[in-house]
Every structure is written in C-alpha cells, then in structure tokens.
C-alpha cells in the first residue's frame, strides 16, 4: 500500500464510519416482535418472553413490577373483553422467578371493580400467590402528572404504575368502536384517573401523550382469543375468534402494529398506532419490524 492509497482508504473509512456505525446500531435497535402460538397459554406466554431474552432482561432482583392487564369489564374470560387470566398469571410467575420483590396487578375498571376482578378470572388466578398484589384502585393514589403533551397538558395517573421499577403492559387484542382496535397503547388508560371519557374527543393524540410519559418496558398482547366486533366489551361469543397467540415486544407500537394484522387491518388504519409512531414512540412499519415466531 502506498501513501496515496493509505490516505484514500483511511479518509474514506473516516468519512463512512459514522454512517456505518449508525447503520449497525439501527440494525440492533430494529424492533423485535415475538409471536408464540399454541393452546397451552402459559407455555406460549413463557416462550414469547424467553424469545425476547427472558424476563431477567427486564426484571432485576428486588424490583417492584406492575403487570397491567385489561380487567375493564364484567365479562367472563371467554368473551375476550379482558386479558386471559392464564396469560396474566404466567407473566406474574415469570416476574417472580426473575426475582421481583413484589408484583402489582391492577386496572381502573369500567364496570364495578369487584365484579370485574372476580369475573375476569384474574383475581382468582392470582389468589394465594406470595408477593403478588391484586388490589382494586384506590383513588387517593392518583396524582396529577405534568405531561406537556399535544392534547393533555396534565392528567391524573396511578402512583403505583409510576413508582414501579418495571411496567409490563398486558392488554387483550380487541375491537373498539372509536379507535377501531384497543391494544397496548390504549391499555394505558387503565392507569389514568379522572374523567377518562374526556380524552375520547382526541383519543389518539391523548394516548400518545400518556404513552410518551409512561413507557411500557415490555408489552405482551394476549391474542389467545380476540374480540372482533362490538368491542371493547363484547358480550357475544360469536364475536370472539380463538387465535391461540401471544405477542411480545419491548416496542408497544410494533407489538400493536403486528396485532393489527390479526384483524385483517393494517397499522396505518389505526389512528392510535399512527399517532404514537409519529411521536417517535416506536415502529409501525411491518417491513422494518423483525417478527420472530417463538
């Protein structure tokens, strides 16, 4: 190598280096969505978590973890209005196995909270587990949080969700009258207090505002059965489709984007997903998301 070629190659390398490094980093940051399928719901839930690197990647010993399922409605679990109790239970077990000091499971329900907790099957599924709390919402724990969002400047959010070390979002995939679908991004409404109906007038922007503030460390979408119509509470088993799938990702937007396809829709059809993507909360383009079958 002569001097000229050394200088040229070094110069090129120096010029290209930032681009190359950025490319390499981008490849590593590419959103990963894991899809596990099977009729053994605890097994597929575990498989999905394992494919993301295992729960130990998210939960460290001594952590306080919030597992936030959808317990919004007084419906039995077969009607797909709430997260499946077995999925919730498995996520909680994984957290404990990873060393969590305490796992808190709650939701700000729409129907009577006592009935929702009982009839969703979730309270029963967690009964007797050590270091697990399945408490109904206590209104004094809501505190006003400055969001400085586009639509919501401030809102009351649940203290326990904010103070936890790890926040795991465990929604059920279902139809919704206004937002078309309700998935991970919309599940955050369960930690919101106040007059929640207010945000319906600008739902997608409001949800982006809240999700920008409260990031889910892990999103596990229950698509063991999905509600395809008359959501979000359904009530007719004819609207329920059994898919036996669990979807997991650290990117809520990506998880939502993939789950959208289960309904025969595209991520761009769902304003909530689009607004969150535009806000930079995650990736919604399916061709830029790495989808792995676990």
């Amino acid at each position: 190598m002569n001097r000229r070629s050394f200088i040229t190659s070094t110069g090129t390398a120096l010029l290209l280096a930032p681009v190359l490094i950025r490319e390499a980093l981008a490849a590593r940051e590419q959103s990963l969505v894991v899809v596990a399928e099977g009729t053994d719901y605890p097994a597929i839930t575990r498989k999905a978590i394992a494919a993301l690197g295992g729960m130990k990647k998210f939960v460290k010993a001594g952590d306080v973890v919030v597992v936030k399922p959808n317990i919004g409605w007084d419906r039995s679990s077969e009607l797909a209005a709430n997260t499946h109790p077995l999925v919730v239970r498995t996520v909680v077990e994984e957290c404990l196995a990873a060393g969590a000091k305490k796992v808190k499971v709650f939701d700000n329900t729409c129907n009577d909270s006592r009935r929702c907790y009982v009839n969703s099957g979730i309270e029963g599924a967690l009964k007797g587990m050590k270091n697990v709390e399945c408490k109904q919402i206590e209104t004094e724990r809501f505190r006003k949080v400055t969001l400085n969002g586009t639509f919501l400047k401030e809102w009351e959010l649940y203290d326990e969700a904010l103070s936890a070390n790890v926040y795991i979002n465990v929604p059920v995939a279902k139809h919704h009258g206004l937002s078309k679908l309700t998935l991970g991004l919309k599940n955050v409404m369960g930690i919101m207090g106040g007059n929640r109906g207010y945000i319906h007038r600008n739902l997608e922007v409001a949800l982006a505002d809240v999700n920008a503030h409260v990031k889910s460390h892990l999103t596990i979408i229950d698509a063991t059965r999905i509600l395809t119509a008359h959501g979000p509470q359904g009530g007719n088993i004819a609207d329920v489709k059994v898919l036996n799938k669990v979807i997991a990702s650290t990117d809520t937007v990506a998880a939502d984007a993939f789950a959208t396809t289960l309904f025969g829709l595209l991520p761009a059809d769902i304003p909530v997903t689009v607004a969150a993507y535009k806000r930079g909360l995650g990736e919604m383009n399916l061709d830029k998301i790495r989808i792995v079958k676990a």
Partner: protein
Amino acid sequence: MKSTVPRICQLIFLVLFLFLFVQTEYRGRDEISAAVNAFFRVDPLVLLSYLLATKSWSWLLLPALLMVVATLLLGRFFCGWICPLGTILDLVTVKIRKTAPIRALKGNTKYWLLLPLLSASLFNLNLSGLLDPIAILLRALTFLLHPLLGLVTREGWVGLYRAIGERRDTLAPAYNLIRDNLLPFRDTLYPLALFSAAILLGIIALERFESRNWCRNLCPLGTLLGWLGRFSRFSRVPAGLCSDCGRCRELCPTGFGQDLLRKEDCILCLECQRGCPHDRISFLPSLKLRESGPLLPERRLLLGSLAGGLLLALPARFRNPEKESRLLRPPGVRNEDDFLKKCVRCGECMKVCLKNALYPASYQAGFEGLYTPLVIPRLGYCEYNCTLCGQVCPTGAIPSLPVEAKRREVIGKAVFDKNHCLPFARKIDCIVCEEHCPIAEKAIRSRDVQVLGLDGRFKTVKEPYLVEEICNGCGICEKVCPLETKAGIEVFAVKNRTPISRQAIVQEEKRFNDPYN
C-alpha cells in the same frame, strides 16, 4: 340490662340484625345467601299491609304468617325478645333520666296510627314501611350511620396516605379486614339521610318521658302484635299488681301504667318475674282465653280510621308528570302502581346496589313514593350482570330474577340531547356511551357522518344513535357521558317495559375450557 334468657336473646338478634345488614352487600358472589330482609319477612305489619294493598298472596311472606300464629299463641314476645329497635331502646333507656309520660300519647293514639295505615293500604296506599320500626332502624343505618362510618374510616385511611405515602401499606392488612367486612364499598351520600336518622333519634329521645315510649304508645307493629297477643294462651299470673307490693310497676318497661297488666302491652320480657321480691309471678299457658277489654276498638275509631285512610290515599295519588319522566325504578319493576303497593321502603335495595344507582325518592315520586328506590343514572348505573336488589327485596316489589331475565328488563330508554352531545353539538368524536353499552348487540351504535365542523371544514365524525328496541335503560351511558354536569344522553321512564329481545343479549354456550370461570 341484666343477663337473662330474654336479654341474651335480644342481644343475639340485635347482633344478627347488624350482621345481616353488613352482609347485604356484594361479596364476590352473584348470590347473597343471607340478608337483612329476613327481618321483614317475619314482620306481620309488612304482611298485613301487603295483603290489604295488593289483595294477593306472596309466599315470600310465609314467615310473617308463622309469626302471626306464634303471636296468637304466645303473645307479643317479638317486642321483648327480637325487635332490634326495642333492644336498642332497652340499652339506652337506662342512661336517660325520665320525666312524666306524655298524656297525649295515651289512650287510642297507637290505634290512630295503625288503623289509618292499614285502611290506606286497603285503598292502595301502602305506607306501613314509613312507620315500621325495623324499616326506621334500617333506613337510619343505610342512609346515614353506615355511610358515615365508611366516610370517616376511609378519610382517615386516605389521610394516612397523604401523611406517610407508600409506607401505609404495612397497615393495609388490618384496614382491608375492616374494609372488606364492615365498611360500605363506597361512600354514598343519600337524600333524606339526616331526616332518617332524626326519626330514629326522635324515637330514642322519647325515652325521656318513659321507657319504651315508642313501643307502648306509637309503634304500629307493636300495636298489631299486641292486638294479636290478646288471643294468647300464655299469660302472667297474677295479672294485676299485688296489694302489698307494686314493684312490678317499676320493673315493667311497657304496661303497668294501670294496675292491671294488659296482654296487649306485655312484651314477655319477664323482668317482673325475675325482680319479684316474693317470687309470686309466673307466666303460664292456659286453655282459657282471659278477656282483657273489647276485642275490637270502638266504632268511632274504626270508622275514623277507615275515612282517614281514604283521605290519605286519594290526594297522595297526585303525580307531577314532569317528574314522572325521570321516575326510573329498579330493574324488573314493570308496573308503578303494583310496585308502590309492595315496596316496604326499607332501603335494602339501595344498600346493596353495586354502583349506587338507587336512591330514596324524597319529592320525585310524591308523598306516596317517599323513600321508594329511584335510579339516578348520572350518579350510578344498573350493573348489567347484577341481580342483587331483587334478591334482597323483602316483598318481591323488585322481583328476584335470574341474570338472563334481569338483563332484558327495561328501566327506561336512553335519549340523546343533541344540544349537549359532543358529535352533534361540537362536531367532535366521543362515543363513550357506545363503548360502555353492555348490550351484546349494542343499543347505542354510531355511524360515520360527513359534517361541517365548527371551523368551517368538512370532516367525518361518529354520530351515535339509539336502537330503542334493545335499550334496557341501565343508564351506564348517562353515567359515563364525559360532559360535565348534565349528560348528553339521558334515560327517561317509559310506560311499556316489555323486556328486550333475547337475541340482543345472546350468549352462546361456552366453547372452550376456562379454568377460572
């Protein structure tokens, strides 16, 4: 109170009453096995006014019939052994210094209360619950004392959180125990709360004049039981005061105003027997019916009461049609007149209501409907899968229905107010009502409509509309409407409360196994 068999029995029933009262609440199961309605089911006043008003029979009231038979055999033992209000009076009366009895309450006053009540029942106005002692006690508990207990405890608990934050959690097990077993689930403020408690306090205040003042001079249930007790085969020997002693007069809580203990006054508390310095007194069964005065009150009283009842019953019928439009009754009540004849106004349905949808009517239903339950949807809605109010209603005024039937029962019909409802008034999306509508086929639906927005640009909004045939009027839409104060959708009463079709709420058989349901 000294611990004798009747006194212990009284305390047991008081504790039972309070226990059943607290149990009249959702405890994680769809059915309530034991509720405080048991006390009304054995209440002969409830039975008699029900029979007179409805002119029909209900098996729910069989225990009350048995109580009538027991009273005919034994006398007015209910007042001295069971009645929780009587027990409370016995407990507090020892602390209250007595002045002289009120003369105006003597004589036929108690009949002037009981008989017009019964006569009004005959003319279709059943107000006996207003003066029934158990109902009075229950209403004071339900509308003021229990909510007050809840409010104070919870405020203390919240205050603790504000003071020490998360560290409060160490005390949580103790608080949860109290909350889950004693407190009302949520704090509710009721209209008529102070009034209800004032009546109870008034009855207690009457103890200033003589012991068991309410029981001996006013209580319509006691009067009725006393009249039935006249036929009892079980009586005190000797019937009157002994010439050399007279201590019975001090010992007796009810009857010895005169020198003779009248059977209708004797509540069989056995205090005279226990306290007799000479051991002369015994209560013995006998075959012979001992006469004590005429069996029927004087004719003037009978006719006067009949006329009084009629005079009470007719004007009470007046209803303001304006108010009637929001006169929403609990689920399963299809006929207002029939409901009013059966309702005891005990307040149990309001105590048990999951979402605090039910409130006592103060002025809304006229004098006739005082204390009857009213759904106020803006404050609380009727939970779709809940059947508790029907389960605890003592007389079946609110029928006890299986959940499939109750879901279809019509409380009213929702109506949009387009001047308030956001998609109409402000041309923006909302449809929180559609989201919450529990009917599987959705009684509230929405359609995409091109509208001219307030900014002058065309846009698409989802306009909600009602499918009236399948609306059961549960009121969740009105409750959750995110507008402040007045809702953009409201439930109005309807005359035709034919249940909605089965198809609208269909739930097919379970298709797959679910270990937790």
